[in-house]
Every structure is written in C-alpha cells, then in structure tokens.
C-alpha cells in the first residue's frame, strides 16, 4: 500500500517556469504518508503549480518530483486522486454518468463504486439532472466524488471549499479528516485553512514560489 511509505512526495530543487516567470523556485521538501497537508499562501504563490506538478499535469523545468516512490508520475496515476478548481466534469451529463465514464478510465468496475463515491460526498446518485444545472457547492462535491472514485492513496485537492456553503464545507473537511485517518495522504490548497485547523497535520506556507514554513499551527503559517 503506497500510503504506508514513509515518504509519499519528495521534491528536489523543483523549479517550474512559465516563460521567464518562475512559479516554483527550487523547492526541496519531503512529505510523509498518511498526513493531511494544507497549502496556504497568497494568489500567485505557486500552490496550484506545486499541486499540478505532483499530479503530473505540469513537468518540472528543473529538479525532480518523486511521487509514491516513482519519478515518473504516470506510473502511479492509478493511485492519485486529483480535484482542480474547475469541476473536471461534463456539464451535459448527470453526476452518475460522469462517474461511470471516469471509472472506466481507472479500470474501476461496478456501478456500486460510483454510487458509493457520490453518497460519500452526501449527494444523491439518482439525481437525474445534468451537472451543468447543479449549484456550485454540489458541483464541488461531485468533483470530490470523482477524485475519490479510484480509492486513491494520494489525494490532491485544489480549492475544494471555494463557493461552498459553510455547512457543506465543514462536512467536506470532516470527510477529509476521515480519509486521512484511513492513512491516505492528502494535500489541500485552500484560502480557507481555518476549516481544516483541527484536522490538518501540517500547514505548508508558500510565498513567491517557495515553501517558507511548515508548521502544525495555522497562525504560525499565516
């Protein structure tokens, strides 16, 4: 089981440039397994780029990223769940239709897995409405269900609480804590870190493309 590894993500001298702009500047960090990391920082600090690089969606300009023991992220994609700021869902299809399609991409068989993933995020799998007609909060939850579909050992979540009402955000935070307790490693990029104050193992503060602090106390990270 990948999450039983002592280190799940290792970056060494990680640099990511977009043209002349350096989004990540020589990040060398080690992240252990079975923990909930909350990445905080101002807009443009490099949080999303770091997450995309770990997910294998952006390749390092220089330096290396090792994920779940593999230097080629594509080798461990089946063990990664990724939720981006946009929903990564087809608006014209229902939630269940979306999940059925993505389940096929992961080789996950069985209708039950899709239904359970939807129930996990407290939505109704039988809701016969295209995702485009969901509220923003419902869309975010369905997006989380998609990320959980393959039972990943590493979960990467970019702004999961944005535009979600307070009660739903708290429910999602509780779910993340529960998943961490099942020894999954979770990275959450958020502008609402207070929601995870009781659950997070570490707050990772980023500034200008660098990790400037790692602490278990939110105030210290801010």
């Amino acid at each position, binding site marked *: 089981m990948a999450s039983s590894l002592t280190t799940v993500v290792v970056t060494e001298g990680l640099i990511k440039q977009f043209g002349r702009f350096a989004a990540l500047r020589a990040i060398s960090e080690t992240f252990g397994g079975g923990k909930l990391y909350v990445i905080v920082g101002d807009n443009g600090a490099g949080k999303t780029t770091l997450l995309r690089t770990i997910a294998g*969606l952006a390749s390092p300009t220089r330096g290396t990223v090792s994920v779940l023991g593999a230097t080629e992220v594509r080798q461990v*994609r089946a063990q990664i769940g*990724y939720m981006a700021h946009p929903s*990564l869902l*087809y608006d014209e299809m229902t939630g269940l*239709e979306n999940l059925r*399609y993505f389940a*096929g*991409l*992961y080789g996950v068989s069985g209708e039950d897995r899709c239904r359970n993933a939807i129930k996990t995020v407290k939505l109704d799998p039988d809701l016969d409405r295209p995702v485009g007609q969901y509220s923003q909060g419902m869309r975010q939850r369905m997006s989380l269900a998609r990320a959980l579909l393959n039972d990943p050992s590493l979960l990467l979540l970019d702004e999961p609480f944005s535009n979600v009402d307070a009660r739903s955000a708290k429910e999602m935070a509780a779910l993340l804590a529960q998943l961490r307790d099942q020894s999954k490693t979770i990275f959450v990029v958020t502008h609402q870190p207070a929601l995870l104050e009781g659950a997070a193992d570490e707050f990772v503060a980023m500034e200008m493309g660098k990790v400037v602090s790692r602490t278990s106390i939110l105030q210290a990270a801010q």
Partner: protein
Amino acid sequence: MSFLTVASATLKKDVRLEWRSKDAINAMLFFSLLVVVIFSFAFDPTAEESRRIAGGLVWVAFLFAAVVALNQTWARELRNQVLDAYRVSPAPANPLFLAKAVGNFIFVVVLEALMTPLFIMFYKLRALGPGWELVPIALLGTWALVVNGTFFAAISIRTRAREIMLPLLLFPLSIPALLAMVNATTSILTGEESARFWIALLVAYDVVFTTACLLLFETVLEAE
C-alpha cells in the same frame, strides 16, 4: 483497463454529448445547406457541367463543414478543464484520440448521408460510372479529413486563435486527400476513367496519417 474499453467508453460519451447538445451536427448541416443553395443559385449548371464540378463542390463543402465538428470535439474537453481529468488518469492517450476520430467520422458521415440527396437534387446528378465506388471514396475520404483534423484540432486547442489555426494546419496537409477525393468522384460521375488509382491513393494516405497521428498523439496530449 484495455485500449478498446477506454476507446468505446469515450466514443459513447462523445456521441451522448453530441446527441444532447447537437452543437456540431446543427452547425455542419446549416453550413452545408448554405453551400448547396448558394452555389445552385450562383451557377445553375447543366447536368453535364454538374458532373464536372460536383466532386469539388461536394468535398470542399464537407471539408469546411467538418472543421466545425473538429473544433467542437476538443472545445468540449476544455470546458471545466475535463481534459485534465483524462490526463491524470492511468488511461493511455491513444484510445482518446481514436474515439475522438471515430466520433467525428460518425458525425461527418451522418452529415454526408443527409446532404447527398440534396446535392443530387439541386445539381441533377447521375453517375455515369460505377456509382457504388462512391461509397468507399466517401468513407476513405471522410476518414482522411477527420483523422488529421482531430489531431490538428488537439494541437490548436491551446492556441489563442484555435478556430483559425485548425484550417491553417489542416488544409495544406489535406490537399493530396482532397485531390484524390475530387478526382475519384469526378471520374465516377463523368464515367470517363477509372477511379481505382485515386482510391488506392486514399487508402495509402489514410494508413500513413492514421499511423503518424497515433504515434504522435501522446506527445500532443501531454504538452503543457
């Protein structure tokens, strides 16, 4: 997960999305209909003249109409960045490409099936050569257009002016196929010579470009 499972799931998804939105098919139909009507008013050709110009007219109309579907095919994947969901999954790149190409092929063939009777009616067409050969020409020619079109549409989605970029990339490369399609169709309509050479050229074109697209698609998909 197997190649075919992912390809068929993606194809079913694309057909379902098109069935619900009808974005591509409506735009293609409208465009082709305009071409048929406008050219029939502009030329008013005799039956003999029609047989000589119809090959070019029909295929150029289908080529331009196909570009509409080809642009739609990837635009759908950009909304909500759904393409990233595919890229983070362990599914290989080629089933996605093949499903998209087959999906576009189906949409354009449906368009051709709907528009051909209108072309025949407006231009008073009757084949003097072996008419059945128009079927392999249509299938091979359509595949030639969509396989390259799907590939170049994937390249152009990340560019700012993607609607312009696709024809700029696609049309020059499609000239040999278009030449074969037009000449083969004209040969059959006029009954003056055999279309076999042009059909063989289309087969070779399809094999070469399908192979090249399949070999290169992963690089295109993984590009940032």
